[in-house]
């Protein structure tokens, strides 16, 4: 069975008017960049894939993950990770608690702990487990958010302008890190961005969304 994320004839409508249409398959280890002007509905597409589409929209078409139709599944059963432009670390949890929140149930306390420590080590944040996320730098928080997402063991990854809040230098660094990890894990990735740099460095196919509501 092929590892892939496919969007089959996906079409999102608002008030009966189509906003976006996508028909594409993202294979494992590949990064599909979805570009387009702001307001075209890029984030709406991601909301459809994660199962969080607002009821004012209507979505049609299927989302397939590794060949299984997940269109009807609730968000928490879809196994699709997502990173936003903000790190969205839960402010009431320590770094370690944030990571533990993402790890699937099971395993002993010690096992879960060592998973967390190793994962933090991998991104150069050893010993950060007890820290308050609010005391971390922007780059550190972005790495924690990445690790949290990876520890939940997703089968695909969505990036919603994930790098746009970081300054230029940090941005290239975090971007490289993310793309390297997803290649290692062989995950299909769908990235929406308005930045051509992001799309180029992803090295995958690029599709442009066009606005249907042109006057």
């Amino acid at each position, binding site marked *: 069975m092929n590892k892939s994320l496919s969007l089959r004839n996906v079409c999102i409508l608002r008030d009966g008017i189509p906003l976006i249409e996508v028909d594409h398959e993202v294979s494992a280890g590949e990064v599909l960049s979805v570009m387009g002007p702001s307001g075209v509905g890029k984030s709406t597409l991601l*909301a459809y894939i*994660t*199962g*969080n589409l*607002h*009821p*004012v929209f209507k979505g049609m078409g299927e989302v397939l993950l590794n060949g299984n139709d997940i269109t009807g599944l*609730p*968000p*928490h*059963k*879809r*196994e*699709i*990770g*997502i990173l*936003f432009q*903000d790190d*969205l*670390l*839960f*402010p*009431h949890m*320590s770094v370690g608690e944030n990571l533990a*929140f*993402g790890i*699937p149930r099971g395993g002993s306390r010690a096992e879960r702990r060592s998973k967390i420590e190793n994962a933090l080590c991998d991104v150069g944040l050893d010993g950060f487990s007890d820290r*308050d*996320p*609010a*005391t971390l730098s922007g780059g550190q928080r972005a790495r924690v958010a990445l690790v*949290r*997402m990876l520890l*939940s063991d*997703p089968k695909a990854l969505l990036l919603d302008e994930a790098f746009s809040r970081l300054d230029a230098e940090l941005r290239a660094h975090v971007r490289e890190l993310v793309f390297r990890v997803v290649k290692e894990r062989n995950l299909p990735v769908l990235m929406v961005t308005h930045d051509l740099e992001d799309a180029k460095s992803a090295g995958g196919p690029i599709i442009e969304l066009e606005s249907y509501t042109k006057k």
Partner: protein
Amino acid sequence: MLRFLPALTLFAMLGPVAAGLWGTVLPAFGHLPAAGLTGPSLDPFRTLLDWAGLASASRLSLSTGLIATSVSLAIVILFVAGWSGTRTFRLLERLLSPLLSVPHAAAAFGLAFLIAPSGWIARLVSPTLTGWDRPPDLLILQDPLGLALIAGLVVKEVPFLLLMTIAALGQAQPRRSLMVAQSLGYGRVTGWLKTVFPRVYDQIRLPVYVVLAYSMSVVDVAMILGPSTPPTLSVQIVKWMGDPDLSMRLTGAAAALLQLALVIFALAFWWGGERAIAWLGRIWIETGHRGQKEAPIRVISLGLGSVSSLAVLLGIAGLAVWSVAGFWSFPNSLPDAITLKNWDRHGPAAFQTFGETFIVAGIAVGLALILVLGCLEAEHRSGRPLSRRGIWLLYLPLLVPQTAFLPGLQTLLLNIGADIGRAPVIFAHLVFVLPYVFLSLGDPWRSWDTRNATVAGALGTTPWGVFWRVRLPMLTRPILTATAVGIAVSVGQYLATLIIGGGRVATLTTEAVALASGGDRRAIGVYGLMQTFAALVPFALALTIPTLLWRNRRGMHE
């Protein structure tokens, strides 16, 4: 289950109001099987019309309501226009916010202790300025025009309207409008009134209506500060309703319908006034008057705002001093002797009542939180926010005068043989606690970043997991604040406790108001102070608990 919560909440809020109104309409038309009377007849209204005090009671209801509301609103609007964004504004805002929770009755007693002929103000200026060496024979409290009553309402409604206005300002982006206006040469006050006020008023319209309806029909404040011969219409309704002669209930019910009609009339009148002012405002805007010499307006608005908050603060201080006062001769500013005897005498009973007050408040607020959180979560999951009509329904229990439906509710409960006592009192409190908890929690709940829920869901967390492990902890502060608001509302309930409790449920408020006629200032001091604490302590806890709980989480304090 979650899907039914909005309907259940509406039922808990509006069911008692509708049932109570029905229970008022029946006896008003002569139908009261418990007293062996069957209607319909118009006799209750005839008896009502024969009552000599009717004209002045009705006039009082209208005048206190309209004057108290316009004065409170004018103070708030001019103060916000003249000072918003300044350090003075933040200072007074901080001073006024806790006053919001002070129960009306406690504030009224405090004010009475200040302005009475033997009150603190008279003592401070006597005999040097006045020459009085004993309390002057002046009718300051319970004056026939209801001026003391109006003052008592204004000092409590100013903090309420101010906080409502500040909340509305958040959405109106006043700074930009004001900057544009000032760059065009407009004065601060004029610029604010012409550019920001129309948007802000649209947001605070319903709270203003609540103030109007409340001021017209309030009972506890009117019993403390209002005239007594004849009393205000609502006080008279409560008297009739408590009369051992059951047939007087018919007259009371008829008067309750009159009270409702007066409130509807006043609301319609106010609505017309809004139109007239909008029309005049447009003309004023077109003239292009830039507004010079605004300094006096700013000074006056600051003065009135300060006097209003000081009146409550000094009033509470007065309650505290009276609660430990031994012999206190006129015109000394402080008691001749300080004693704990008053607390020895009234303290134990007051603390017991404190317990009962918190049982009622705790259960009512607990139920309200379950319903409100359930409604908000249902709203979040369905993605359908509360409509404009929904907001009106939220305000409805606060717009219907309490005297119009609470006595009717009690009559109805008696007719069906239901027990009166603590449980019905809790549900009656819920009617008033629910809207305030909902209004307090709604905005912070909705402004929570739902991408947190998306992320948590993507990490494999169920919707209820997100609710308990992410959303509730992140919203600790607003939830505790809403709890404190709910407790303050419940603690302050007078009529709902008195009438639905049938005299068997005593809270600090009912006990304090019962002391009003006796005039034992030391007992009033003890009970009034306890009442204030009962409402203030939850607010203090709502501030400190999150600070302690999340002391190592900086992101929770932004």
